[in-house]
């Protein structure tokens, strides 16, 4: 393989990973933009999402990667999976907000963040105790269609992943930009009190942000399973931290920034794994996290929502 092909292959891999991180990063960034909360529960909403999608596929009669579909049936199955997982994780996010976080709204300091660590632990251990520590083989109806570009391979699942992520991000962008609720979200992010006085129902805005963020995390969870053909209770932490790094890199609170940050982290992971050593990848990513927060806390693209403290 020539250097160019290696590079191309790693860019394909990196963009795929990055699209997934971007979906996950959006949830962090939306919640942080609106109520300045780092939501650790998000890590494991993603993990739960991958299990829910697995159960949906299994309920539709798939197991392993042997039964594949083509054309419209494939799209149908994937769409059902996506819709169900997004609804379930979306409402999981809403439930977390209502039960654990709304009573603490407006508390100063880090108490709400500590609560999200607790919620994250609860989700993590419920899955661990009920499913067990084993890695599960993912039910995956996608055919192993691939295209050769030089020595690099582009697989159908990557293209689908890109398309799904792109559509979801575009949808979110339009939602935030052009709908009434989206504008209410922007207003709340700028100044919660002022938004409230202008008639914005801040509680609904926050719930909506949790719903959307968690739904996107669920979608990312399903994509993770389809991409890697496995899922496990443990996937939330690493992917979550990487996605969080992506959100920070793009400027936390900044929606387009989170998308770009996700892609960047994906590329860093794949290219770093290729040209350095895989075992140092996490050190690189966490160093980026630390360095960006210390030297450019507004992220490389700057912050969209002003800091309120």
């Amino acid at each position, binding site marked *: 393989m020539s250097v160019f092909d290696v590079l191309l292959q790693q860019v394909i891999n990196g963009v795929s990973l990055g699209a997934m991180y971007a979906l996950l990063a959006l949830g962090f960034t939306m919640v942080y933009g609106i109520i300045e909360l780092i939501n650790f529960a998000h890590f494991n909403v993603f993990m739960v999402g991958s299990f829910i999608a697995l159960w949906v596929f299994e309920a539709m009669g798939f197991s392993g990667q042997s039964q594949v579909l083509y054309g419209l049936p494939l799209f149908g199955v994937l769409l059902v999976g996506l819709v169900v997982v997004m609804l379930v994780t979306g409402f999981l996010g809403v439930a977390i907000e209502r039960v654990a976080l709304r009573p603490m709204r407006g508390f100063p300091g880090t108490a709400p963040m500590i609560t999200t660590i607790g919620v994250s632990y609860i989700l993590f251990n419920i899955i661990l105790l009920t499913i067990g520590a084993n890695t599960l083989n993912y039910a995956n109806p996608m055919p192993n269609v691939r295209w050769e570009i030089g020595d690099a391979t582009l697989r159908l699942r990557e293209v689908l992943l890109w398309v799904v992520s792109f559509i979801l991000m575009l949808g979110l962008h339009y939602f935030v930009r052009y709908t009434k609720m989206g504008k209410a979200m922007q207003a709340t992010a700028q100044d919660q009190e002022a938004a409230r006085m202008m008639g914005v129902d801040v509680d609904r805005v926050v719930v909506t942000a949790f719903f959307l963020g968690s739904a996107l995390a669920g979608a990312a969870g399903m994509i993770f399973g389809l991409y890697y053909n496995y899922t496990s209770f443990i996937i939330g932490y690493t992917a979550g931290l990487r996605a969080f790094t992506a959100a920070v890199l793009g400027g936390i609170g900044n929606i387009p920034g989170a998308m770009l940050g996700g892609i960047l982290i994906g590329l860093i992971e794949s290219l770093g794994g290729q040209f350095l050593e895989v075992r140092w990848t996490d050190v690189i990513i*966490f160093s980026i996290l*630390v360095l960006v927060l210390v030297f450019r806390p507004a992220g490389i693209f700057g912050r969209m929502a002003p800091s309120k403290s």
Partner: protein
Amino acid sequence: MSTSPLEHARGFLPIFWERVRSEQWRRGVALVLIVLACAFPLIDGNEGDLDAAANATAFATLALGLNIVVGFAGLLDLGYAAFFAIGAYTYGIFSSYQIQPEWSSFWEPFQWLGFVARMHTEGVPIDHVHFQVSFWLMLPVSAVVAAFFGIAFGAPTLRLKGDYLAIVTLGFGEIVPIVARNTPYLTNGAMGLNGALPPQLFGYNFGVKSLPFYYLGVALVVFLIFVSTRLKDSRIGRAWLAIREDEIAAEAMGVNRTKLKLLAFAVGAGFAGMTGTFYVAKLQTATPEMFTFPVSVMLLVMIVLGGTGSVAGVVVGALLLQLLQSWFLQDLTEWVHALGRFTSIGFLERIDLVQSIELIFGIILVLMMLYRRQGLIPERMAVAALTHAQQTAVPSRGSKVGEFKPLHSQTVDSKRPLLEIRGLSKAFGGIQAVKGLDLTVMPGSIVAVIGPNGSGKTTFFNLVTGLTRPDGGSVTLAGEDITGEGPHLIVEKGIARTFQNLRLFPNMTLMENVLVGTHTRTDTGALGAVLRTPHVRHQEAAARERVMEVLGIFGNRLMPRREHLAKTLSYANRRRLEIARAIITEPVLLLLDEPTAGMNPTETLELTDQIRGLRDRGISILLIEHKLNVVNEIAEKVIVLDHGEKIAEGSPAEVHRNEEVLRAYLGRTATAAVRAAAAS
């Protein structure tokens, strides 16, 4: 008079607490607990239980260390286990078979010191070095190494606010175990260190027995409880709490927050380093998995459960969770298994409840945060409210001139201006908040700054006190240029302030709030606070006496409440407390930002009197005030600001007649109406 049993019972608990709080009782209780801890191995001879208890002491010391960082200084550290790891590997590397350089004469002096041994293996031509530095030496050395890492990591990151700092520490906490895993030369990677040495004491080798480690662990816990309590109740501890409560206010009261945050980080890391050494010596190995995120979270759960900031609480939290894990859940699992066999329910036969410990951690975190954030043993016990009689006692006015010592010791040249401001400017984006401001305050005068809302008055105060850095111009205090100095340095030089929207330390007592103000005028360091030298004792006593004197200015408004938390005060009393806190920094110039806001006419009158009293005791005053009757009453000079510019300056009477001022306040039409009314 006889008391009914009910009354007696009701009275008992507060009296009991009162006693527990008293120094003597606390010492007594501590002694009993230490004796119980020492007697424990005699009561429970089970080796497994003892081992678990020995491990629990290690987590108690870690929780104590994390409590300094999170509980005292309010810096959420999610990667605390990293410092534990650093301490562990520092000891592990220097007293194990991990690194074995070839023997050369270079090592001879170290051999003579007993740090290394010459190791000869049959059939191997070259001898090697065996590191065997004494545990007792490495215990403080690891603490220092970990503290050094704490400072090195903290220096660039500690200026980040709460949640960002949490994430940065989390990142650091991830990096350290990965580095340990990826550098097998130093750490033997995931396999774990080779044969770390157990401690020896007077020829007695601790080996793998739990008993000596248990006693060593108890000794460490007792030592660190002692250090924590001494620190907390000192100048250093109060500065930490002040930072936790309100960073900006702490700095405006003279606390150098960067330095004190670093100190908290270093002390916390030092505790962890020491524990790391203890833990490795006990296990005689160390693997990277012992120091990952779940460990940091477990320590956080211990603190949250026991009571953030409460020394007794975190120890109880740590012991409870450790013993829950290693004693109770194991026993419970066996009982459930027995039940399962009895009822032949397969699920019950197989379930391992020890595995669910993290689920329990998560539930504890959420429930404690939602329903009992102060923890099982709160940092503060409730103080009995004042009785109706005490509350309604007629306020006695203080400020009796001449009865007290002057409030500051600086000599001020009465001929020269005390504060001289030239061309001070500040813009926020496109808004020019303060523009080319000139102002002179002569010693012993009261100068009022007035102006419509948004005219730049508070920004002006922030510029003078260093909270905001000016774009241009100069601020000179008694001939010394202080432009752009840090807030804590400006306090030290003699300018103190109050805040318009009140920035007290809500969860500290009145006494402690005011004591924070003595920070720049005292010099007790961390070591002094722990050793409590005669100098420190004397200084503390003097500071407390001073507080009583300053609280006395406000008669019996604050004095009877001095052991109450600041958050329980009424609005007017909060204003008074802020002034008291500012006065005790011994300022030559006091900046009061709307001191009478929210006070009723009687209270306003009282405070006006007291402000004048302060001036008579040698403090010059610059105040922002909206109540013009107050301004007319006490100010010798009035400055009027509008859109950041000075539009008038003079005596209150002059300013009232000024056209520009009328226009700024009332608008053009109203001004014309006023003029017409005056003419007719």
